[in-house]
């Protein structure tokens, strides 16, 4: 480089100020903060995924369909899975843009982020965050309800013996009226069936039917408005007792 060029550069930099140090520090912190926030949201997303999968009543569904694969495909929370993937990418992007982020390898970051999401997701799930978010979204966001509809539609396969809805009239504990998810009314008669291949502790004995309660049932369709229910379980999965976890 000739002297003239050095002189030109020195002339030029006389009119320029180096960027302030705080700008670089802030940029680094922002990458960490956004990375951490995305990880947190990813973990909450994982909690919702765990909640939804955990509370898909595969056991009850299997009584109607021998292969649960169809249900798995229908009920996987795609919205949340895609969200999780997006947040994992955002975490990766932010970590890569921290000061020493370039030293981290893709597979290492991916494993760390996925494990951290699962670990925090399990904690959040156990704190009830998954349930709160799923219910909150269902109540407040119409688009979310629409997206989750295929998951509910499974419980309208009355020909296969599946029915779900809200109890709107209770004549006695064995006989009630149900408004299904398509707003159709059903006269439901509860009838125990000992022929069903159920584990001994399957029936939720401490489960009380009441008006306004959302339930799901496995049984037999009698006609267009009548349904014989062999098994009744609450639609909301926050139901206690031995009947809940059924595999």
């Amino acid at each position, binding site marked *: *480089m000739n002297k003239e*060029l*050095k002189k*030109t*550069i*020195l002339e*030029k*930099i*006389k009119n*320029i100020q*180096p*960027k*302030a*140090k705080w*700008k*670089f520090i802030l940029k680094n912190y922002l990458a960490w903060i956004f990375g951490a926030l995305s990880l947190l949201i990813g973990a909450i997303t994982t909690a919702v995924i765990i909640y939804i999968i955990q509370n898909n009543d595969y056991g009850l569904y299997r009584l109607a369909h021998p292969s649960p694969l169809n249900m798995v495909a229908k009920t996987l929370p795609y919205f949340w899975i895609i969200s999780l993937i997006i947040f994992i990418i955002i975490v990766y992007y932010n970590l890569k843009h921290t*000061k*020493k982020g*370039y*030293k*981290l*390898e893709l597979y290492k970051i991916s494993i760390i982020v996925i494990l951290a999401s699962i670990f925090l997701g399990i904690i959040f799930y156990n704190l009830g965050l998954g349930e709160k978010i799923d219910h909150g979204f269902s109540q407040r966001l119409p688009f979310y309800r629409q997206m989750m509809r295929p998951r509910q539609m499974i419980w309208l396969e009355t020909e296969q013996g599946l029915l779900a809805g809200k109890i709107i009239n209770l004549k006695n504990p064995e006989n009630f009226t149900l408004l299904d998810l398509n707003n159709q009314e059903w006269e439901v008669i509860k009838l125990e069936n000992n022929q069903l291949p159920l584990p001994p502790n399957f029936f939720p004995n401490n489960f009380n039917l009441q008006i306004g309660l959302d339930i799901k049932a496995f049984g037999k369709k009698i006609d267009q408005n009548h349904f014989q229910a062999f098994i009744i379980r609450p639609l909301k999965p926050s139901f206690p007792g031995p009947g809940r976890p059924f595999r």
Partner: protein
Amino acid sequence: MEEQECLQKKDSELVRLTLENEEYFFCIMKKYEGPLLKYINRITNIHPEDAQDLLQETFIKAYINLNEFDLSLKFSSWIYRIAHNQVIDNFRKFKNQPEKINSEINEKVLEKIKTDLNIEKTIDQKILKKKLNHLINQLDIKYKEVIVLKYLENKTYDEISDIIKKPVNTVGTLIKRAKEKLNHLIKQNKIYE
């Protein structure tokens, strides 16, 4: 600024002094103009004037971002990284320029490359030396750059990682692939006797 005064000072000290008084940037330029210009020339095929322009842009960018440099990094790695970014940013501009052959590969570098590439002894030394630049120039820029940094700039894997901002293992993989490609080119060009 006296040249002797510049050479006596450490890079980190020069950075600190430049931030107080821009005149000290002269020392940084004095110290790195040669190595950076060589590096730019080695990884690009551009005309000397264009290389000077790239060098000028590199220094101005380095000055603007001087506060970004911290002591966890070698200053040379940091300023090479800026040059690397300038080259990548301008890559399209000089991509189609005619190839420039320079004969800067000395015996020591040649021997190092030969050993590392497991090049057979039967190879014609003179032809290899003559053609090596030409062959390196045929490599994709990402391979060419790591070969230049490792063999011609004598940088460690860690330094290369800091310059091109890639994980050390990725640097290793790039160098391995670059060597394979170079070996393939050597065979393809029938440099063997």
